[in-house]
């Protein structure tokens, strides 16, 4: 059975393809994404409040390596097989090495709906994995030249809206703990799925606009958009095994790895690698990878996680 939030995505997609006049106010879309980011952070922080933090550091190291690896491999594929220019390949690779909060939210929702637990640090992984691909992507495009304004870049990466909200939410959740959060659960927990549904409605509309662009791009970029998440998902599963995560945690780390950024990375790349064509990466990420992950990827990663967990 398809989750109801994914039905909202399909509805938006169809409405967009049928050229309906449906449109969400920009402020609503921004407000929803703000609430989702805070809620994910709060939930993660609340979970962390209940456990020791010391085993976390090596885990963070592992997921950073995971992100860097994905970016490098994607870059090699895009240059060698896709024959993209250096800048385009680097920018696109950064999208795929980084992560998508919306995909994470759909994955978390998929697990929660089925009563499958996952480790609270997944929210931290989400936060941490946003950044390394960005930096690797820029280095791939530019080399480590003196030109790069690393100060501005660090600012962009660590103080962007998404990372700030995730970290803030986590800190609040951690300090307040489960009890302290009770008064605000009405907004951040009870409405989470409704907010996610509306958010995915807009995502469907956004995705529908990529179809035209995608047609122009041809087979390579479409295949890349489909196969790269599969490959990254496997990498993610491997990493999860290494970290000894639960089945839910394995599924979600695979989902994270398979996901590709469409907010933080494009914005930063536009500034840091302006000669890269933003339409190219976005059409692959939004037109192929995002829909694939939320509709087919997540159940698949879960299936594989169950098999793997049984095997080891």
């Amino acid at each position: 059975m398809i989750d109801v939030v994914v039905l909202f995505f399909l509805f938006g997609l169809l409405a967009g393809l049928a050229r309906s006049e449906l449109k969400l106010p920009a402020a609503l879309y921004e407000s929803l994404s703000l609430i989702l980011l805070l809620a994910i952070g709060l939930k993660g922080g609340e979970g962390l409040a209940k456990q020791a933090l010391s085993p976390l550091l090596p885990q963070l190291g592992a997921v950073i390596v995971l992100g860097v690896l994905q970016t490098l491999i994607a870059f090699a594929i895009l240059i060698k097989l896709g024959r993209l220019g250096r800048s385009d390949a680097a920018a696109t690779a950064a999208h795929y090495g980084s992560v998508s909060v919306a995909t994470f939210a759909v994955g978390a929702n998929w697990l929660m709906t089925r009563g499958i637990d996952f480790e609270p640090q997944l929210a931290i992984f989400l936060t941490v994995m946003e950044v390394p691909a960005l930096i690797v992507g820029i280095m791939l495009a530019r080399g480590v030249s003196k030109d790069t304004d690393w100060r501005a870049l660090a600012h962009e990466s660590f103080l962007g809206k998404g990372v700030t909200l995730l970290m803030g939410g986590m800190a609040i959740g951690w300090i307040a703990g489960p009890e302290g959060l009770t008064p605000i659960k009405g907004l951040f927990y009870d409405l989470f799925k409704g907010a996610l549904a509306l958010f995915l409605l807009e995502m469907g509309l956004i995705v529908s606009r990529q179809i035209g662009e995608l047609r122009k791009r041809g087979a390579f970029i479409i295949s890349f958009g489909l196969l790269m998440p599969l490959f990254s998902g496997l990498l993610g599963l491997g990493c999860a095994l290494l970290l000894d995560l639960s089945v839910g945690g394995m599924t979600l780390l695979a989902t994270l790895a398979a996901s590709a950024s469409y907010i933080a990375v494009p914005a930063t790349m536009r500034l840091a690698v302006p000669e890269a064509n933003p339409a190219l990466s976005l059409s692959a990420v939004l037109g192929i990878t995002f829909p694939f992950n939320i509709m087919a990827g997540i159940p698949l990663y879960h299936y594989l996680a169950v098999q793997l967990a049984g095997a080891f």
Partner: protein
Amino acid sequence: MLANMEKRTLLTVITEAVIEQSLLRDLEKHGVRGYTVSDARGRGSRGIRDAAWDEVANIRIEVICQRAQAELLLAHIRDQYYTDYAMVAFMVEIDILRGEKF
């Protein structure tokens, strides 16, 4: 005619919302002391730009200054941004009071 009326130039730049901060910092580095920004959407050689998010949204920046400075700014903008960004810029002559302000 009003006394103290002077001629200045209004430089208008329509471009990608995502570069707002960096372009404004850039203008300030070139001596601009005042500007006005508003949100816009549009269509041009780089396609339709009318989304809810910065990457596919436009802004419109206006700077009032001396003709010579406007030309310098325009030349800088052309060299720095025209190749890589969705952008249109134009200048128009205007009448103002308080010439010392611009």
